[in-house]
């Protein structure tokens, strides 16, 4: 799919979410509204981590932004963040993580507060409105 709105902000972003529809919606909107020209779509935290590790020899393949779902089976968003922290600096790069959730649980927000990799929380779906928030910040 091609970007329709001029130059995208990022070269590459990654979305980690166990729900197909949510990945589909996010990817479509990210490409449509000029967030990025490439979206790496992973259906589990583990798959996301594996992709990041595989970029160690070629850091130019790393995403600049990761949209991270919180609630996933096996390893959830928090588990991912714990493992992410252990990755070598080269792999983490200048990446920024945004948590995606339908969660209203204030504890979730608290858990992420101190985390230096997480830039913000976004409520699903990742629709045009949320994208506009991103573009304006």
């Amino acid at each position, binding site marked *: 799919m091609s970007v329709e709105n001029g130059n995208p902000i990022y070269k590459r972003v990654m979305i980690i979410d166990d729900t197909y*529809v949510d990945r*589909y919606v996010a990817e479509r*909107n990210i490409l449509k509204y000029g967030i990025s020209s490439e979206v790496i779509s992973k259906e589990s935290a583990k798959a996301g981590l594996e992709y990041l590790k595989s970029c160690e020899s070629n850091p130019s393949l790393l995403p600049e932004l990761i949209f991270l779902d919180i*609630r996933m089976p096996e390893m959830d968003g928090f588990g991912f963040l714990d493992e992410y922290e252990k990755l070598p600096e080269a792999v983490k790069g200048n990446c920024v993580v945004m948590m995606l959730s*339908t969660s*209203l649980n204030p504890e979730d927000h608290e858990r992420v507060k101190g985390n230096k990799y997480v830039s913000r929380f976004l*409520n*699903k*779906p990742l*629709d045009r409105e949320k994208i506009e928030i991103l573009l304006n910040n």
Partner: protein
Amino acid sequence: MLNPLLQNQVRFHFGNSIEIPDKFMELLNSISDTYDQFETLAEENSELKKTNEQLDHFVYSVSHDLRAPLSSMKGLVEITEEETTEPITLEHMKLLLGSIGKLDHFILDVLDYCRSKRLEIKPERIDFKELIENISDNLRHMNSGNRNVDIKITITQNKEFCSDRIGVGIVLNNLVSNAIRYQNPMSERPFVDIEVEATDKTANIIVKDNGIGISKEGQTKIFDMFYRVSDETDGTGLGLFLVKETIEKLNGKINVESELGKGSIFQILIPNNVI
């Protein structure tokens, strides 16, 4: 048989082979009973705490699992809406979004109701500024229509205020979210004014809006369970019922003034439960 804790204390202070006179034994038995009761209460309290935690966890889990597919659906419907110019399709998508919104709202209200049924009302210190700002931020994120509404918050809190934090949160969240939901589409500048005046005796809260207002007849019924003004909006009939129940539990009072087409003013009084 004396309570074990009491037995240990007696041994500690008087040694093992003390001869206890009968009258004194009566007193010790009575004290032992009190210790037993205390231990039972402590155990029950800890069970209650566990139950409440489980309830909270259940509520958030269920809330998430019910709302997640709805948000997925909303994402897809919005995409369809944006990528078509067919009037019929647009109409269908609008109707779909309406139904999704109704269901989502109902889930939120039912879960609030569950949370309000927690078994203990533990007074906690409440910082109204923090509480209302959180509520306001959450509401802004949740719905696109909310962005139009100008939310003004005025808090006067000089003394410590204690009450059931969750209950007060539920009440405020409901009132503010209603004010936003029932904004007047004709209005150029829809607003919600939230004023809190917290003294050492009470918190006087006013939530005022310039929304669609409530008819005189409606005003007598809005706090009834499942009463809804119309089917057009996505009201569930649970929100204000829950608000009234919660305020009663807090020993507070609620009052509404409203005029159709002009707006509404909800006034609440909550006693300060500072220990």
